[in-house]
């Protein structure tokens, strides 16, 4: 009796989640029709070992940034003209319109080492109109900062050619929790995994980092060594921190509101049986229970307008994705497939919510996305590994997540349609990634 029912459920679950046919279009096709050629940058005057090593890094980083941006069809370097291009007068535009190269736009430039630093001149040209789109001179105080110059120019190219749709992600950062023996510390890396730096070194358990909208602070939970209490920390990346007061030994999954003035998190009062979603102002005052429900309520995330909060609740039996207004009213269930859902993250355009899902018969998770308006879901990761804790890039075209696909838990980034997966950490155990916002504009 029960066996056929179970089988039916399994069969229907399989149809719902078959990955081959997207039920919703994530957004206008991610691999755009803009064909981009990126010629290797050249020494401006004469080659030197310093210039060569700086150029090697620059060309590699620039190519990867533009390729991963998911805006361009990158034209293979194999068919480029042999003659190096340093300056605009070196370009023969017919060479870039042959059937094999067939580029719409061309990136090129030069580099000169001066003292311990370097100067880079970078260009973007429209091949058909032969017009200059961008011409920039960057000065790096040290050749070790050459990666940043490449990131900066890549973002300029993306901003121009996406007509302002994206400011580019090449200068963004990713925070995550990294296991060191019995402790877990918070680290930050560039979006491509380079340049790791330490945020915490307290020897305790530091978990679930989330960025403030201006990238100046990280919120996360901490259990210090020897303490039997989880605390919510607001760590200023320039130094200094604040502890948000909570009323019991349990506190989890903080999330700062898009206006930076409020913080949502999961905790409970001393006498409560279960966690609830609370909101406090960013200084920790005015703490208010939004869910007030006898079930586990955790993992809040804000909609981009700050008007709504998605969260996880097991009030229906198992943890599922629910949505409510930011004052706690209008509570509704968003995903209705059973199993275990967690880690919701609202897309920057407000249309979609990323989450991880563990099917009832499984122990591993996969990354899914649900369209808020319709509840339609689409599977983004497949395979034998567990894929969890997804988080949007600020332009909504990429996703960072943790996966066991390389053995231990590591951090990966991919396009928003699940393609173009790139591993950005390799050592130890790394989890709970959070993608920063765009860098602050320096004027």
């Amino acid at each position, binding site marked *: 009796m029960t066996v056929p029912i179970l089988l039916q459920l399994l069969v229907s679950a399989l149809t719902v989640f078959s990955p081959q046919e997207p039920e919703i279009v994530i957004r206008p096709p991610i691999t755009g029709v803009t064909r981009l050629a990126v010629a290797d940058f050249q020494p401006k005057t004469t080659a030197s070992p310093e210039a060569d090593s700086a150029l090697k890094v620059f060309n590699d980083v620039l190519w990867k940034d533009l390729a991963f941006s998911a805006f361009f069809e990158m034209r293979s370097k194999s068919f480029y003209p042999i003659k190096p291009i340093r300056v605009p007068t070196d370009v023969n535009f017919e060479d870039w319109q042959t059937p094999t190269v067939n580029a719409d736009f061309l990136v090129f430039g030069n580099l000169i080492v001066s003292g311990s630093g370097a100067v880079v001149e970078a260009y973007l040209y429209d091949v058909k109109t032969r017009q200059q789109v961008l011409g920039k001179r960057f000065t790096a105080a040290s050749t070790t900062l050459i990666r940043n110059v490449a990131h900066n120019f890549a973002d300029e190219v993306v901003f121009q050619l996406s007509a302002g749709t994206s400011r580019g992600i090449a200068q963004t950062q990713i925070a995550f929790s990294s296991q060191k023996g019995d402790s877990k510390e918070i680290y930050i890396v560039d979006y491509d995994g380079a340049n790791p730096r330490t945020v915490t070194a307290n020897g305790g358990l530091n978990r679930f980092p989330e960025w403030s909208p201006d990238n100046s602070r990280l919120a996360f939970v901490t*259990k210090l060594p020897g303490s039997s209490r989880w605390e919510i920390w607001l760590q200023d990346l320039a130094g200094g921190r604040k502890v948000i007061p909570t009323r019991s030994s349990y506190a989890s999954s903080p999330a700062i509101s898009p206006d930076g003035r409020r913080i949502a998190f999961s905790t409970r009062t001393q006498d409560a049986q*279960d966690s609830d979603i609370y909101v406090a102002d960013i200084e920790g005052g005015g703490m208010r229970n939004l869910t007030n429900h006898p079930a586990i309520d955790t993992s809040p995330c804000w909609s981009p307008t700050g008007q709504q909060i998605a969260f996880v609740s097991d009030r229906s039996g198992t*943890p599922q994705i629910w949505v409510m207004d930011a004052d706690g009213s209008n509570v509704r269930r968003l995903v209705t497939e059973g199993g275990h859902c967690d880690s919701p993250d609202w897309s920057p355009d407000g249309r979609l919510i990323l989450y991880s899902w563990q099917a009832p018969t499984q122990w591993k998770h996969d990354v899914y996305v649900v369209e808020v308006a319709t509840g339609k879901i689409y599977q983004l990761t497949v395979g034998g590994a567990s894929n969890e804790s997804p988080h949007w890039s600020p332009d909504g075209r990429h996703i960072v997540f943790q996966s066991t696909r390389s053995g231990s838990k590591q951090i990966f980034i991919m396009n928003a349609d699940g393609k173009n997966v790139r591993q950005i950490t390799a050592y130890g155990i790394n989890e709970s990634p959070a993608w920063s916002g765009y860098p602050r504009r320096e004027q």
Partner: protein
Amino acid sequence: MKRVLTALMVLAVCSALLILPGCRRRQPAPAAGPAPTAPTPAPTTAPSPAPTIEVQANPSTIERGQQTTLTWRSQNATSVVIDGGVGNVAETGSVVITPRESQTFTAVAKGPGGEATASTRVTVVAPKEAAITSTDIEALRQAIRDGRVKDIFFAYDKSELTAESRAVLEENAKWFRQFPSAVVVIEGHCDERGTEEYNLALGDRRALATKEYLVQLGVDPEQLETISFGEERPFVQGHDESAWAQNRRAHFTVK
């Protein structure tokens, strides 16, 4: 420990002996009027025998929050009532009680042959001052190391206590009550399934359910702290039920 038990048993027997003489019996009143001069015919039925009752509390002196067992035995009774909130009871039986204050329990047995009462007093003393003694902490740590204070285990995605867990906690509670100055940290743990965020909340719920039952068993809530580790500290590595079952637990440490 054995010596303590023996002493308690001796005490119990002594107190029972002391209580027994205190039982009063009411004989049926003799028939009024002058004694008959002529022999009356023998009654066709013997008079109903008078009921008897005895009641005792073991132990008769407890610390506030501890339990004692009230035991009674009656004969020739059709109803037995014990005051102090115990109520109507069977002719013979026992009940575990946790009086907050010193109290005298009076049992009344009624039957066709009359009525009998018996009393016993339970003395409740204030718990000893919870001075932090390193001996308490060390003794309890040793009991945990020796496996005399045991961990309890949970079903998948559940925080309800099983009958087996309750039995373990009843034994653990005795240890915790015995060393009241040692603060016990109840750790809630989960298996690797589910996400880290959810498991941190689930581990909290497991630790809380454990604390709640220990408090019901008379452990001072001030002696108990809870902390969830979620899936942070698996006791057994592995991706199968045998490993998972070992990792869904409440573990006890002394602060």
